[in-house]
């Protein structure tokens, strides 16, 4: 709401009110008249009320026209906070800012005279106070903003810390779970190791206990076959030979079981010695000669002129190569060839055993080195064994730090290649 405060001199001029009316469209008009006798502004009677419209305001001013002459008017307006309007004696209105064009004495006089003005002035003080308050509030707001920022920062840090804590809790949980898993796995591993050891012991003890009587049986049959108990007739010899071979197969399986238990034990270490390979292979060929001869198979041995030696455990390598050569004979039809080739380079000794046998199907190649593996082929019905032969070969080669590979074509034969590091 606009408030108009007028300070009027008694010497007003005609037309002032109209000008004033045009100039201000305030809804409330307070007029104060300067009394020359007193020398102060006094509230003009009838003007300290709210004017509803311009017309009523004019009427009120006109009713005082003969009593008062307007000389100065100070107006206050909410929009401009404080504006001084000076009215000259010729009735024209001009504007100035307090302290520049309005004499101090005039303002003081007006303030002394008018409680209303004092109130307005106090309003200014209030405004000043408010500004201080505002400033303080702004300061406070700024501080609060700072605090808020700090709080926000603290909140963020707490949030981060919370996330970290959650992550740490998760990590601890996971670590605990991991430890549990590790403990469980360790226990399972130890259990399995124990079971494996017990199994190895069982196989070892059982096989050993079985092998002694089996050996005795073989030797007693040997005594009969070698005529320690006198001459045998043809039938007796024939039957005994069957029993003898059967007993040998049994012993061979027992030996394979014992060898497997030994090589699978956790503390196995092979004693190796630099050994020439050619005599080892020749010895095997000599020992297996009756086997090849029985199937009318030819065995060729190809080797380089120079000495080929490697750090090996002779007995174990002999066992591995014997198994491979026996297999070559077993899975090759009568009348065909088997070739053993010895070679070496700077790093490895290579022994290849090539047969012209039935071959191995691709899907079986992956399994043939597993324990107790027997694969079906056209000759498997005629072949006996523990299913441990190739497992032992692979294990022995591995324990030498070597490797074994096989390539095969059905109906054409297989090539087993053993590579041992020099």
């Amino acid at each position: 709401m606009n408030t108009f405060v007028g300070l009027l001199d008694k010497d007003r001029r005609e037309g002032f009110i109209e000008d004033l009316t045009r100039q201000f469209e305030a809804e409330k008009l307070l007029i104060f008249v300067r009394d020359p006798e007193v020398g102060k502004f006094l509230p003009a009677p009838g003007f300290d009320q709210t004017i509803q419209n311009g017309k009523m305001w004019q009427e009120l001013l006109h009713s005082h026209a003969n009593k008062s002459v307007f000389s100065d008017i100070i107006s206050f307006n909410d929009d401009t906070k404080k504006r001084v309007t000076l009215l000259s004696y010729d009735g024209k209105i001009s504007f100035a800012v307090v302290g520049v064009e309005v004499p101090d004495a005039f303002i003081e006089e007006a303030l002394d005279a008018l409680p209303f003005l004092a109130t307005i002035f106090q309003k200014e003080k209030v405004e000043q106070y408010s500004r201080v308050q505002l400033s303080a509030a702004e300061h406070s707001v700024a501080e609060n903003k700072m605090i808020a920022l700090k709080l926000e920062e603290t909140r963020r840090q707490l949030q981060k810390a919370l996330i970290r804590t959650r992550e740490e809790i998760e990590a601890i949980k996971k670590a605990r779970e991991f430890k549990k898993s590790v403990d469980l796995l360790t226990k399972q591993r130890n259990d399995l190791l124990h079971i494996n050891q017990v199994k190895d012991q069982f196989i070892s003890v059982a096989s050993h206990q079985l092998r002694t009587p089996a050996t005795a049986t073989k030797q007693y049959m040997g005594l009969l076959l070698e005529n320690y108990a006198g001459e045998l007739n043809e039938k007796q010899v024939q039957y005994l030979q069957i029993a003898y071979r059967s007993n040998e197969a049994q012993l061979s399986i027992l030996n394979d079981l014992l060898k497997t238990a030994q090589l699978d034990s956790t503390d196995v270490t092979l004693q190796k010695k630099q050994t020439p390979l050619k005599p080892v292979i020749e010895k095997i060929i000599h020992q297996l000669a009756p086997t090849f001869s029985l199937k009318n198979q030819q065995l060729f041995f190809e080797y380089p002129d120079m000495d080929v030696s490697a750090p090996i455990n002779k007995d174990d390598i002999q066992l591995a190569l014997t198994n491979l050569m026996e297999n070559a004979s077993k899975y090759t039809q009568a009348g065909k060839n088997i070739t053993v080739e010895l070679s070496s380079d700077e790093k490895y000794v290579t022994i290849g055993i090539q047969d012209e046998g039935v071959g191995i199907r691709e899907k079986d190649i992956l399994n043939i080195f597993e324990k107790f593996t027997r694969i079906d082929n056209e000759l498997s019905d005629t072949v006996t064994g523990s299913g441990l032969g190739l497992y032992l070969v692979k294990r022995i080669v591995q324990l030498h730090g070597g490797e074994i590979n096989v390539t095969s074509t059905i109906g054409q034969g297989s090539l087993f290649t053993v590579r041992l590091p020099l």
Partner: protein
Amino acid sequence: MNKQYSVLVIEDDPCLLDICKIVLDAGGYQVSTATNGLEGMAASKANMPDLILLDLYMPVMNGREFLQNFNKDDFPDIKIIVYSNASEKDITSEMLELGADDVVLKSSISPRELNDLVGRMLARD
């Protein structure tokens, strides 16, 4: 055979002991027996055999312990063949180091081959 060699068989299995005795008797050797290493030690000193056929796995004192305790220097002329069933282990080099003259697997040779082996070993100087 001009000289009758004496052979001490140290073997705990009665059947295998019996077989060795049959083979060596038939081979013309003078055969004595013991069923463990400790007995064998006493028999060695008492009989001073030309050759000992030594089993490996035995109660009381096994073949390895026998070799460890048998002072070869005191009996330089006694040949020792370790006659074992330990096919699964590489015992040959260990036994030779302990003083054995040869190592043979029981199940790998026939009675006659055993007889021949003993003959060959005794013929060695």
